[in-house]
């Protein structure tokens, strides 16, 4: 990662604490929302959005992805694409079926 000087590390530590607080708050939020009476679709989108935000925070700051080399980013983008393919195409096959379950 870039910038390993003392000051930048100390600056990082502040960021880590902030990220930690956000993660904790978001966890409480997502649990709280799950007790609300919302439709499944809404609950689904809220939960996944919150999880994605939390995940991105961990990735970007704890795992330093935000200042990581392009090569790593591309590796992860490729992986993400493969993952999405694996996730969605089988699902399409559930809806695009002759006959039923």
């Amino acid at each position, binding site marked *: 990662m870039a910038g390993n000087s003392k000051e930048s590390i100390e600056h990082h530590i502040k960021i880590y604490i902030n990220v930690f607080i956000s993660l904790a708050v978001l966890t409480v939020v997502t649990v709280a929302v799950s007790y609300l009476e919302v439709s499944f679709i809404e609950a689904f989108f809220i939960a996944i959005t919150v999880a994605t935000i939390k995940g991105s925070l961990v990735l970007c700051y704890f795992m330093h992805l935000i200042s990581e080399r392009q090569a790593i980013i591309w590796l992860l983008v490729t992986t993400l694409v493969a993952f999405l393919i694996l996730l969605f195409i089988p699902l399409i096959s559930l809806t695009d*079926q*002759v*006959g*039923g*379950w």
Partner: protein
Amino acid sequence: MTEILQYFGLPVGISSVSGRIDEIIVIVHYLMLVLFVGWGIFFIVSLIKFRESKNKKANYKGVESHYSSVLEGAVAVIEIVILFGFAFPIWAERVNDVPDSRDAEYIRVIAQQYAWNIHYPGADGIFGDTKVELVDEQDNPIGLDRNSEFGKDDFYTINQMHIPVDTKIRVDLSSKDVIHNFKLPELRVSQDAIPGMTIPVHFTATSTSKEFLETAVGTKREGKSLEIACAQLCGLGHYRMKGYLTIHEQEDYSAWLEEQAGYLEEEGDDWGDDDDWGDDDW
């Protein structure tokens, strides 16, 4: 153009789609042949022309033109034409134009290790309910509920499928245990029977068993009629999971249906346990 395939063992096609499926098999094979022969000639010529003993010094640059990209483009275009012109329409008809019970002979096929249960709806044209709890391999392999509203006149056979010629047939395919594949090679029909799913298959036979047997006279196949093959590994008996298909003229088919209905009245509830399971010992 499809006759050529017969020399390579393809069985005579006797359904309304077999012509088109054979056609696409042949077209693709011609494409393959052209590519193979074309490149084959180039290959052999280069091997002979540029062997070490004849051509001492290699040419650093080699071929400089880029005609090969044209060739690659042409292959791509032909493939696209094959897909959009032939393959997609056939598939669309296969999966989208499934006839409903009013327009077709409606039959259920329930596969199991290692037999085909053929379930006919009887005179009312509607299937009775089937229930897992009622399944009894001896007396009621498909778990038919005789007391359900439409179940009284249903009958089923084991490994014996009878259908009328020139009539749309709709088969609802399911499986009791593992995955099988319902294959009628001469009708170019094949479909996996997947447990938990009911998959409709439809086809129209264009000649009767009798007519078919006449075409086989004098070949190794003489005297052997149509069969239902299982084309998916389904266990130890996979290789002998064979049913028989009989295609009747319309009148004969009606007569056969009546005959079956007659048995049903004679034998009451015990009906069905004396069916043959094929001619091989079980």
